[in-house]
């Protein structure tokens, strides 16, 4: 059929309503493609934490408690998927309770041994999803949410105070016991009094901070931001000690090990800096973006590399081993006594456990 014949066929075949319907279907398909729908677009990576002999993983419709040594499931919350209940924040433990926020503004406290729900509170409003895990400090829960608020609860879920920033909170705060250090998407790092949430100081980081800072024993905070920079800040007064310009954005919390500050960026470069001066000691190329935080173990640091698996580097910057993982690696790697625990996004497993030589010990994929 030539062009005119095609037109003629279309004109005689399609009734008026068919034209309208066809246009609508095409438009709708186009708009909903690539995650356009968005009533609840739960797109984040797994949040995980280790406590004793358990690994707790929050991802999508559930939270799983796994036996650390063999990856067997101990319990799952909720027992079956529920509408609008999505979990991505790393769970925290306090008083034998697992505390975790979801993507629909609620915080849940679960019995860590059984997964039974102790209490839940609506901890945020609007689009106040909980992306980062809560800080547990002195029997208090400090939960950052995307509705710009840090909320402090006691272990019974009673609200004690709130501190409102000017941007979403995607990073877990850290504390030295005297202050809480809270990074925000509004470009600021806040130091708060844990007793009442009053502001002690705030510092403009020059870019949104999406990962927790690292607080060392000398009272220095190390924090990356999406504007290609890592900063060292004196926790006491909020003064910048040094700045380091990375090649690309830093999404991960730096790791301090062997007297070096180690982190990766989205260009796939892994850096080792002198934590006192910020001077570069070495760099190496991991082969793909490093989004998550590395885990220090006996021989070096294992980094999650987005599409290239786990790359272990010794403290001199030499690659020790590389273990491919089916899926994308965005979450930080956790380390236990003898395992590296790798949360996987969009992969064939949710958690892959490697030994310190990069050999897989077990993997876990939730039953559908």
């Amino acid at each position, binding site marked *: 059929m030539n062009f005119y014949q095609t037109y003629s066929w279309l004109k005689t075949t399609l009734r008026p309503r068919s*034209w309208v319907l066809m246009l609508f279907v095409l438009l709708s398909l186009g708009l909903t493609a690539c995650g356009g729908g968005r009533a609840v677009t739960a*797109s984040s990576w797994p949040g995980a934490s280790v406590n004793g002999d358990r690994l707790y993983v929050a991802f999508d419709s559930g939270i799983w408690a796994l036996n650390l040594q063999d990856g067997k499931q101990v319990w799952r919350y909720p027992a079956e998927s529920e509408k609008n209940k999505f979990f991505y924040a790393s769970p925290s433990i306090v008083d034998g309770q697992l505390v975790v926020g979801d993507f629909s503004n609620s915080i849940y406290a679960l019995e860590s041994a059984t997964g039974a729900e102790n209490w839940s509170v609506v901890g945020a409003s609007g689009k106040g999803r909980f992306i980062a895990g809560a800080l547990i400090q002195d029997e208090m829960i400090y939960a950052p949410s995307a509705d710009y608020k840090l909320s402090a609860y006691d272990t019974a879920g009673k609200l004690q105070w709130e501190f409102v920033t000017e941007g979403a909170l995607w990073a877990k705060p850290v504390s030295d016991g005297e202050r809480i250090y809270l990074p925000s998407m509004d470009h600021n790092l806040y130091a708060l009094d844990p007793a009442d949430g009053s502001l002690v100081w705030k510092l403009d980081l020059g870019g949104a901070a999406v990962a927790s800072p690292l607080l060392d024993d000398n009272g220095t905070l190390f924090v990356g931001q*999406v504007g290609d920079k890592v900063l060292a800040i004196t926790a006491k007064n909020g003064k910048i000690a040094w700045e380091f310009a990375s090649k690309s954005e830093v999404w991960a919390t730096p790791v301090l090990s062997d007297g070096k500050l180690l982190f990766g960026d989205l260009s796939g470069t892994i850096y080792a800096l002198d934590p006192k001066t910020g001077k570069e000691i070495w760099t190496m190329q991991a082969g793909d973006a490093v989004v998550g935080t590395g885990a220090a173990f006996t021989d070096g640091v294992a980094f999650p590399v987005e599409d290239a698996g786990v790359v272990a580097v010794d403290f001199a910057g030499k690659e020790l081993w590389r273990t491919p993982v089916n899926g994308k690696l965005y979450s930080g790697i956790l380390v236990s006594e003898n395992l590296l625990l790798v949360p996987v996004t969009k992969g064939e497993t949710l958690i892959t456990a490697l030994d310190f030589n990069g050999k897989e010990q077990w993997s876990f994929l939730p039953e559908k």
Partner: protein
Amino acid sequence: MWDTLIIAPFTNILLFIYQLVGNFGVAIILFTFLIRLLTHPLTQQQMKGSKAMQDLQTDKRYIEMQKKYKNDKDKLAQEQMKLYQELGINPLASCLPTLIQFPIIIGLYQAVIRSLSTTPIELLNLTRLIYPSFLKVSQLIPINPQFLWMDLGQPERLHVPFLSFGIPVLAIVVTVTSYLQSKMMTPPQSGGDDSQAQAAAITNSMTLYMPFLMGYLALTFSSGLALYFVASNVIGIIQYAALGSLNWKNLLPKGTSTRKPEKK
């Protein structure tokens, strides 16, 4: 491919405008204006195509073949096609701009949605779309999604104190402006034969249903898209008015502008 050719340039231009004006809603409106400006030649082409099709319906040969092959649809279609070819008329010329709008609408919607990233993976994907030599990520992120009472990344509802539900103001405005636009841009129709009646029926259906479909999309999708629809409709009406092609009479009741079929 789609990301590289459509989404990335759209996102960068949209964010560039946002960086200049500091308001994402205004950026969407200006971006819509820019798109309309760039597709202006296509709009003109569409108008020419419509005019040619309209003129054809008064052509003596065309009228005669309608009578002659009244009972032989295939032959009539063949003869019509011959006449189109002879006169150099492309019957799809008037549809082409509409079809080209589709990837633009989808591209703009995805640019809006991706810019208003609210989760880590969305933000990660956004930063990868941004041309680092063109825009600075650290200055852009986070993007403020607020425009008037709306969060442009969410479906819009206006909450008033005495009502327990939100009013979808933007969806209503989209429906009304879409209706006005399609009414005012519809050329006068000369009814008569089956073919013309069918064309008129298609146009009438589109005029009636499309605004509601657009309104439904505005109701359910992010208000950034609805804002684009409103801006696009208003700019479209102004554009047609500037080209002298608005048919104001279509707004009057009973379609007083529709020509009566010629007496046989």
